[in-house]
C-alpha cells in the first residue's frame, strides 16, 4: 500500500548521522563573545567613521576649552585700536577685528564659553526632563495629566522669544548661569516627552511584574529597572540637543541679550563682526566656522549614538 502511494522523489530518506551530528538540546554557545546593550552599542560605534571623526573633533574642542593657553599666548581682551581690522600676520593667523583684538585668540577663548553653556544646559535639561517625564510616565493618572499639560504650556512658548523676554528682565546679572537656567527653563519639554514615552513603554515590560513578584517596591522598580531601560532615547536627544544649545547661546549673544560683551564668546564676536562684514568678511568667518564645526561635531556624534542605541532608526 505504501509503495503504491509513494511518489517519485518522496521516498524514505534518512541522513547519515555523521553528516549532522546531534547536539544537546538548547546548548549554550559558550564561544560567542559576551555582549550587553552598552557593549553592543560601543561595538557599533567603534566601527562608525562618523563617530570616530566627530569624537576626535570633540576631544580636540574639549582640550581647547580646558587649556586655551596651550594654543595661544595672548590675552583675548588685549585689544589695541591701531590694529583695527588688520590683516593676518605672524602670530596673528586670523588677523584683527574692528576693536583691534586678535581674532585667533578670541576664537580659542570663546570655545570654553560655548561648550560650557551647551554642556551645562544639556545636563540640566536632561535632569529636569527625565524627572518630570519619568514621574509623569510612571505614576500616570492625574499627575501625568498635570505634568503633561505643564509640558504642553512650555512647549507652546517659542524658546527664543521666551529666552529674550526672561534675559531682558535680568539684564544686570552677567554670569553664564543665567543663560544656562533660561535654556533649561524652556528646553526641558522635549526631553520630558521622550522620557515619559520611554518610561511608559519600559513600565509595561514583563520584567517589572517579575521584580514586583520577587518583592521589589515600585520605587525600586523605577530606579533599578525602568529608568535604566529608558536611558537610551534620552541620551540620544541629549547629544543632539547639545548642539542646539550652543547655537542658541550664540544667537542670544548675537542679539545682545546673552552673555555680556566682557565675556569672550563666538556669538558675541559674530555680532561685533557684522559691522565690518562688507570690508573684512574674514572677521565674521572665523568665529562662525568654529561654531559650525563644533555644532556639526555634536550633531554627528548624536546621530552616531542614535544609530548605536536605536538600531531600528538606522538608515540603510
Amino acid at each position, binding site marked *: 500500500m505504501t509503495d503504491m502511494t509513494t511518489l517519485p522523489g518522496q521516498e524514505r530518506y534518512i*541522513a547519515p548521522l555523521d553528516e549532522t551530528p*546531534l547536539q544537546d538540546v538548547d546548548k549554550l554557545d559558550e564561544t560567542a563573545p559576551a555582549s550587553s546593550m552598552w557593549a553592543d552599542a560601543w561595538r557599533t560605534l567603534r566601527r562608525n567613521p562618523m563617530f570616530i571623526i566627530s569624537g576626535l573633533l570633540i576631544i580636540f574642542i574639549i582640550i581647547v576649552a580646558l587649556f586655551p593657553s596651550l594654543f595661544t599666548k595672548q590675552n583675548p581682551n588685549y585689544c589695541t585700536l591701531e590694529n583695527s581690522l588688520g590683516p593676518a600676520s605672524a602670530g596673528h593667523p586670523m588677523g584683527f577685528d574692528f576693536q583691534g583684538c586678535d581674532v585667533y585668540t578670541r576664537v580659542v577663548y570663546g570655545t570654553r564659553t560655548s561648550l560650557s553653556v551647551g554642556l551645562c544646559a544639556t545636563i540640566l535639561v536632561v535632569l529636569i526632563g527625565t524627572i518630570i517625564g519619568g514621574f509623569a510616565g510612571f505614576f500616570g493618572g492625574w499627575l501625568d495629566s498635570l505634568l503633561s499639560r505643564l509640558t504642553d504650556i512650555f512647549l507652546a512658548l517659542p524658546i527664543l522669544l521666551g529666552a529674550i523676554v526672561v534675559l531682558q528682565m535680568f539684564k544686570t546679572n552677567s554670569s553664564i548661569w543665567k543663560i544656562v537656567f533660561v535654556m533649561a527653563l524652556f528646553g526641558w519639554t522635549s526631553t520630558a516627552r521622550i522620557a515619559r514615552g520611554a518610561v511608559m513603554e519600559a513600565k509595561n515590560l514583563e520584567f517589572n511584574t517579575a521584580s514586583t513578584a*520577587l518583592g521589589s517596591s515600585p520605587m525600586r522598580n523605577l530606579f533599578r529597572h525602568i529608568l535604566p531601560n529608558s536611558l537610551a532615547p534620552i541620551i540620544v536627544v541629549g547629544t543632539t540637543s547639545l548642539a542646539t544649545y550652543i547655537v542658541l547661546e550664540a544667537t542670544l549673544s548675537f542679539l545682545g541679550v546673552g552673555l555680556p560683551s566682557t565675556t569672550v564668546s563666538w556669538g558675541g564676536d559674530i555680532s561685533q563682526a557684522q559691522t565690518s562684514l562688507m570690508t573684512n568678511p574674514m572677521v565674521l568667518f572665523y568665529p562662525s566656522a568654529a561654531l559650525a564645526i563644533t555644532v556639526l561635531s555634536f550633531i554627528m556624534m548624536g546621530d552616531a549614538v542614535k544609530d548605536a542605541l536605536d538600531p531600528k532608526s538606522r538608515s540603510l
Partner: protein
Amino acid sequence: MENNESKLVTMQKEQGPLLEVKDLAIDFTTDDKRAVHAVRDVSFSVYPGQWVAIVGESGSGKSTSAMSVLGLLPGTGHVVGGSIKLDGQELVGLKQKDFDKLRGTKMGLVPQDPMSNLNPVWRIGTQVKEALVANNMDVAHEKRSKLAKALAGDEVAVKGNDDETFISSTELPALLDATKAAIAEVGITGEAAERSLAYFKEEWVPGSETRWRVADDLIKAGVKDDTAWDIAKKHVTGSTMDDRIAGLLSEAGLPDAATRARQFPHEFSGGMRQRALIAIGLACRPDLLIADEPTSALDVTVQKKILDHLHMLTDSLGTAVLFITHDLGLAAERAQHIVVMYKGQVVESGPSLEVLQHPQHPYTKRLVAAAPSLASQRIISAKEHGESTDALLEHHVVGEQKLEASETIITVDHLTKEFKLPRKKEMFKAVDDISFSVKRGSTLAIVGESGSGKSTVANMVLKLLEPTSGTVTYEGKDISGFKGKELLDFRRHVQPVFQNPYGSLDPMYSIYRSIEEPLRIHGIGDKKSRVKRVRELLDMVELPESVMTRYPNELSGGQRQRIAIARAMALDPDVIVCDEAVSALDVLVQDQVLRLLNDLQVEKGLSYLFITHDLAVVRQIADEVVVMQKGKLVEHATTDEVFDHPRKQYTRDLLDAIPGGKLQLGLD
C-alpha cells in the same frame, strides 16, 4: 472516496512534482562579511494537491528554505547553490520582477504572525482587493487547478468557462425565488423544501459559489437536469469585486464576511486575522500555498478549526501546501509527506505515518519523544494495552488518595475579578466565581483559551492584582491583608515564572544580577555567599557558570526560561506559579523545561500552579486540572479523569484540538 484517492495519486504521478527543490544551499552574510551556512543540501518535492510539512526547531532553516521558494529571503540571505523548480521553471537566479509575476498567482503565502502581517490602517477588504488587483484576477470567474477540475469532473460535467462564474449578491434573491418555484414544481413541499432552501441559503455565498455547483446542488435536491441548468445559467452570471472579496473571506471561514470586509484589523481577533490572511493567500488561486507556522500564535482550538478549514479549502481547490511547523504531531496529522530539518539539513524525510511510527534518525526520535501531543497519545495507547504508564510519564503523579490526604497550601475561594472596559458601562467579568485549592507538593493546571481569565487568576494568586471579591489564602492566611514584612515573606514563598522569556528578564541586567536580584531584595547573605548561591542555582537548571556574565539577549528562549526558573528558585519558595511558562518554546526545549520543573518538584517538594492553553502539556506535568472558559470554571478533576472521562463538551473540544490526537502510534 478510495477510488478518488488512487486517481489523485495517478494524476500526481503523471503531472510530476509541482515544486522540486534539489541540493538547495542558502548563506547569510554577517556584519563582518562572513558567510553563515543557513541551509545545506536540502532536497524535497511537493506534488499538486499535496500537503508537505517541513518540521524542525527554530533556527533549523525550515522557514529560510520556504522563503527562498518565494524569493523572499530576508536581509543578507541568498541562494548559493542547488535548484528550485516550480512547474518545471527554475526559480534560482530569478529577478524580483519575475518573482512578482509568480507570487500570488502561482504561489501564495500565509505568514506566521497574524498580528503584524496586516496593514493596520487599511480595511480587511481593501487588503484582499489589493491581492486581486495586483494580479489582475478575474473576479467573476473561479480559477480552478487542472487537478481539482479533473477530480470534480467525475461528479458533474463542467462544460465551459462560464460554468465557473460566481453568484453575485444582487442576483441571489432572484435565484432563491426561482429555486423555490423549481422545488415546488417537482413536488417537494413543506419541511423538506424549507430544509433545502435553508441549505441553499447557507451554501450559495455570493462571490464564492459557482454556476455548476448551483446546478449540481439543484440536481441533487431533485430538480430536473435541464431546469437546474436553466436556472443556474439565468441567475448566476458573475460577481463584482466586493462580492468576490466577501466570498473569499467567507471561504476562509469568516462569518458575515461582507460586513467584516469593511472592518479594520484591530477589530479582529488573532484567529480572524489569520483567516483573513488565508483569504489573501488563496485569493489568486495559487498552485502552491506556503504556510509558515500559520497557527503557532493561536490557541489550540482555534488552530484546529483554522487548519481543518484550510485543509478542506485546499482540497477543493487542488492547492498544494508546504506547511512549516515545529510540532511533529501537527505535521503528521496534516501532511502526507514530512521533511525533518536540523541545523540547515534534512535529516529524515518520508511518508508522515512511517516517519512518526518508525523514526530512524536520532533527531527525529528525539522529536517524537518530546512532542507533548504524542506523549499524551502514547499514554492513552499504553493504557489501552494495559501497560504501566509510569515509565512514560516524566511527572510523578501524586495519586488521588494521597492528594486527598495532603495538606492544602493555596486556596482560591469564590474568586471574581471585574474590569472596566473603555467606552462601556457594564463591567467585564474576567474571572467569575472560581474556587480550587493547590495541595502541597502537587501540580494544579489551569487550562483555557486566551481570554478565559486564567492569567488573571494567576496574577491574583501572586497578589499582583486585587480581586473584586473572593479570597486567596496562603497557608491559611488571607493574602489580601498582607503588607510590609508579611507581604515580603509571602513573596519569598510564592514565586512566578512568566510566559515571555524575552520580556521577563531585564535586558540591562547580566544573568548574575538577574538571579541575584531576589537575594538582594530580601537582604540574604553577603556578596560572597550570593555568588555561591547563584552558582548553585545555575547548576540546578543545568546551565554553565560562564553564563553569569552574559546578558539575556545572548540566550535562547529556553535558556532564558531556565534563568527565570533559577531566579524563582533563589529564595527556596514553596509555590511556583508558571504562567504559560513553556508556551513560547519549541517542543524539544519545552520538554526539557518541563522535565526540569518535574525534577525540581520531586527534589524540593514544590507546589505548582501551572497556567497553559495546551492540554497536551498538562498531561506531562499536572495532578489536577481546572478547565476555564470565559472566566468560569468548567471542569475540575484529576488529570487522568479529565483525559479519560471528560464531562463537559468544552473539555472534549480542547482534547480534540490536541494535534496528532487521532494518530496511530507505534509503541517502540
